[in-house]
């Protein structure tokens, strides 16, 4: 932090330029916040953290090449004084737990209100932890609570897929065509293709058959 002006220096790491742009504008509109850099993947986040030494790193969990959790593992060496708040569209207990165990100071959903994000940044800068909608006074208890889930549930990973994306994966596994899926969920075929592109990217698969095999092998779509 810049002691003279008490400005909080922030690095944004997210693979979506539009999201980074929007977040940058929101943060820079806030007095006392300065965005010092942007990274498009975990590797760049590590490099820029070491170079710029930001106070706060806002780190997206789902990024290509070097995902958020992987970057978090190396961050304590690259930038020991930087405090990381993990951002995610969807985050499971196991991921939140792992992020905190790897040194993250906060975990917040991307859908959270801007005011919550700003509060989380200030809380983390004040030495607190932040999970979801509130600051954490007892990290040990929070970690225990996060750990105490049925093993079956923690094993069922969503690989960062949203609920809608999981619905679409289930439909693919069921043999639905894009047209079937668009009718089933009342969305356009173009939207179905857009979802599939995101799903393919997140899972690292290259076509429907590989997606279906992946989903079955990892039990992504089984009925609870």
């Amino acid at each position, binding site marked *: 932090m810049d002691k003279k002006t008490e400005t909080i220096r922030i690095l944004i790491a997210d693979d979506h330029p539009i999201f980074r742009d929007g977040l940058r504008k929101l943060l820079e509109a806030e007095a006392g916040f300065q965005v010092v850099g942007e990274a498009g993947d975990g590797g760049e986040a590590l490099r820029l953290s070491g170079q710029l030494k930001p106070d706060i790193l806002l780190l997206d969990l789902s990024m290509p090449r070097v995902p958020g959790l992987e970057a978090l593992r190396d961050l304590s060496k690259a930038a020991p004084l930087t405090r990381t708040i993990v951002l995610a569209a969807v985050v499971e207990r196991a991921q939140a737990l792992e992020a905190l165990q790897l040194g993250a100071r906060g975990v917040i959903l991307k859908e959270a209100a801007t005011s919550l994000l700003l509060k989380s940044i200030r809380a983390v800068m004040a030495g607190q932890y932040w999970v979801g909608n509130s600051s954490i006074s007892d990290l040990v208890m929070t970690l225990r609570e996060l750990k105490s889930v049925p093993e079956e549930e923690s094993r069922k990973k969503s690989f960062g897929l949203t609920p809608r994306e999981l619905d679409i994966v289930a439909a693919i596994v069921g043999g639905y065509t894009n047209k079937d899926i668009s009718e089933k969920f009342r969305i356009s075929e173009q939207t179905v293709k857009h979802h599939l592109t995101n799903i393919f990217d997140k899972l*690292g*698969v290259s076509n*429907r*058959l*590989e997606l279906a*095999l992946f989903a*079955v092998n990892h039990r992504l779509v089984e*009925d609870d």
Partner: protein
Amino acid sequence: MRQDLRPEIVKASEQADEGRNSGRAERFPVHTPLRYRLSGDIDWREGRTENISCTGVLFRAEEMLAIDTAIEMQFDLAAEVEEGGGAMVICSGQIVRTLLPPASDAAPAMAAHIHEYRLVRGSAEFDA
């Protein structure tokens, strides 16, 4: 009668316009019954998969086929999805590798490259 592959078949070797080509295809350890027949044949034969990728299938069957034999294959994706079982995969390809069994009483294995495939709703059934 032969079941023709409808227009929405996908060439497995092409990069899907939806996804990226990320190198060698991952092999999934799927053990499921498989039906196969030589291209042009009417009767199906039975086998069992050892592993499946988006570009090929390794399966065991009683009779070993020669390399380059063109075949059609069908197998179910064993999955408990909301509205019934998983899709049936219908594909065509050719034998690219054969493996003699480790013991005389075991079935030989064959690797087939998938040229084209489609996923259809419902389980595999014998064609009329």
